[in-house]
């Protein structure tokens, strides 16, 4: 009995080691600090709605650069008239009107390219990942279409192609192909007033703060949206009206990836949690099993009936 117990223990040990090995191979120790730090070459867009005239040149420029068709569904074939970001629209200009029509503001919406994106954190095979310069890109050969990214994004950015049997996840990718050719994104290149500009995140943050400092009271809460929201984003906003009025949600400065993984990253590190549970439960089960087996032989002899598992 003692020898077979050891054998069983050895087997359990081997399973444990194998498990740890698998865990070591597969668990990418993704760091999720509560307040992520931008990479030094991180690029950014700065959008200032006190300069934006609502000309929407960025919308056809984006469509053209990304090979997207115009969304003429709502206009009966007449205009490119999306109601929101969707599977044909990676970038949109929206208008906010004060209820008493005393003020209005435009807002340009597209992917925020967060420093620690929730979509990247949740994507099972890493189809969405943070690529060079911090652009968040999508890879069609890794995506299984589970739409977890849509559920996770606090800005409701990724859009799924509901009407395609080969559906893509559509969102702004910072004109990654253009970035690779040393060009700026199509929207910032075409903007006639410089309402949205392209540059390094550190430079644009500085510029934004200079704008705030030189015109006190002009910008809402005298701060840049995206500096800290959800841990920080690479699209920065300056607005004359409240951010939540133009659809930018109120968010804390902790990255969502951090919130979602702070417990599990500890429990599942090197699969330690499951392994400990396996050993603990296994021990109890083994003990009860042995008892069950011992009683089984007795019962079968008594009643003549085979045991049912």
């Amino acid at each position: 009995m003692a020898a077979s117990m050891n054998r069983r223990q050895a087997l359990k040990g081997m399973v444990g080691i194998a498990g740890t090995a698998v865990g070591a191979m597969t668990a990418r120790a993704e760091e999720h600090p509560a307040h992520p730090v931008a990479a030094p070459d991180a690029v950014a867009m700065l959008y200032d709605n006190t300069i934006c005239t609502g000309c929407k040149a960025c919308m056809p420029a984006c469509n053209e650069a990304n090979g997207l068709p115009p969304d003429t569904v709502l206009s009966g074939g007449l205009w490119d008239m999306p109601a929101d970001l969707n599977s044909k629209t990676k970038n949109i200009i929206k208008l906010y009107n004060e209820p008493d029509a005393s003020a209005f503001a435009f807002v340009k919406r597209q992917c925020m390219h967060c420093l620690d994106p929730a979509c990247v954190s949740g994507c099972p095979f890493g189809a969405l990942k943070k690529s060079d310069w911090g652009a968040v890109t999508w890879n069609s050969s890794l995506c299984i279409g589970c739409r977890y990214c849509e559920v996770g994004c606090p800005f409701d950015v990724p859009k799924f192609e509901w009407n395609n049997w080969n559906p893509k996840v559509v969102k702004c990718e910072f004109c990654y192909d253009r970035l690779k050719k040393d060009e700026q994104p199509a929207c910032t290149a075409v903007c006639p007033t410089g309402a949205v500009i392209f540059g390094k995140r550190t430079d644009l943050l500085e510029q934004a703060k200079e704008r705030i400092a030189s015109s006190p009271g002009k910008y809402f809460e005298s701060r840049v949206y995206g500096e800290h929201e959800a841990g920080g984003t690479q699209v920065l906003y300056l607005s004359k009206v409240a951010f939540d009025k133009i659809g930018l949600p109120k968010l804390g400065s902790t990255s969502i990836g951090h919130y979602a993984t702070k417990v599990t990253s500890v429990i599942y590190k090197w699969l330690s949690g499951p392994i400990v549970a396996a050993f603990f439960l296994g021990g109890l089960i083994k003990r009860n099993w042995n008892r069950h087996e011992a009683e089984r032989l007795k019962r079968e002899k008594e009643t003549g009936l085979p045991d049912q598992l």
Partner: protein
Amino acid sequence: MPGSLTRSSKSLETIDERLKQCGLSRRSFIKFCSSLMVAAPFGLAITDMLTPEAVAAGLGKVIRPPVIWLHFQDCTGCTETLLRPSHPDLGDLILNVISLEYHETLMAGSGKQAEQALAEAVRKYSGKYVCVVEGSIPTKDNGVYMKLAGRPAMQVLQDVGSKAAAIIAIGSCAAWGGIPSADPAPTGAVGVADLLPDKAIVNLPGCPPNPYTLLGVVLQFAESGTLPELDHERRPKFAYDRDIHEHCPRRAHFDAGRFVKQFGDAGHREGWCLYEMGCKGPDTHAGCSTRHFNEIPDVWPIGIGAPCIGCTEKSIAFRVPMFKVIQIHTTAEPPSTYAPIVAPQGKVSPIATGIAGLAAGALAGAGYVASRKFSQVPNDEGIPGSPPAQDSQETQSGPGKGTTGEP
């Protein structure tokens, strides 16, 4: 004055010399040059200059190009358009800028005299003249449906066109067949390019086209011997590469969704977009929306409230009904309205709600009915749904309990 034409038709002088000869003022020539610059703002070498004076100086040195003008199945509208400009001396100016050797409507002679003039012009300026063709050419039944001096139009075109340095097919009829080619096309009317595909041809479709387009092409040819850049239908790009819709003065109304619904309604009086009245502007390549006609602003179809009929386009004019609304094929731009901050999403299907309600109700009902079948007696181990055991000591419950005689 038409008479001066025959007198000086023997020799070709420069335009400056001719103008001096005819006593036409420098001022009217410069005004003519500025009109030319407006009509052909880019893509035309002679007008790619900064000031009308510079254009005038350049043009002045150009030797007047000889032009032979043929008429076939035409309405003479394209000639009329050349002479329509409202400034009284412009017709003169045009006729003095080019050397019109043969023109059935404008020349003094007729009959044998005209025939002779044609033959002589062709012989004298062979290989040098510009042949302007107006009207389509019938091809059915060996082309008998239009004859000039007893010879079919096809033959005349062959004789005169083959010796031209360049052919300009003015008007939709000469460009692709025009009205005579409309269904059922009884004469088999075709355009010049269908009969002489290998010649250097410039098509200027339109019904009628803008006269300055013709002048720009002719003068460029005269100055440098080159023709302006042409598109795949042999139309000069400087005049035909954009569509009406792109530069329409009523475009703001289109973008804002202000459409005329009925001729004479309030919108029509306000000058709203005519898209819903069947305007073919979005599919029609022409410059009418910027150049208008007769040099009077807003004198062009849309400007006076009539939807464009697409007269330059072979696939549209005289084929698609005038008031039929077309699909927009050009890249749709955003309208002048804006998306709201939060757009509505998702709809609730009433049938689905019904099904879900039915399922939930069925489950709840079944659950209630089932629960009533269960005994309220504690420790009742009997079969649920059967009457409860009489005696609590009888732990084997009543009827229906399994016996050894199982089926």
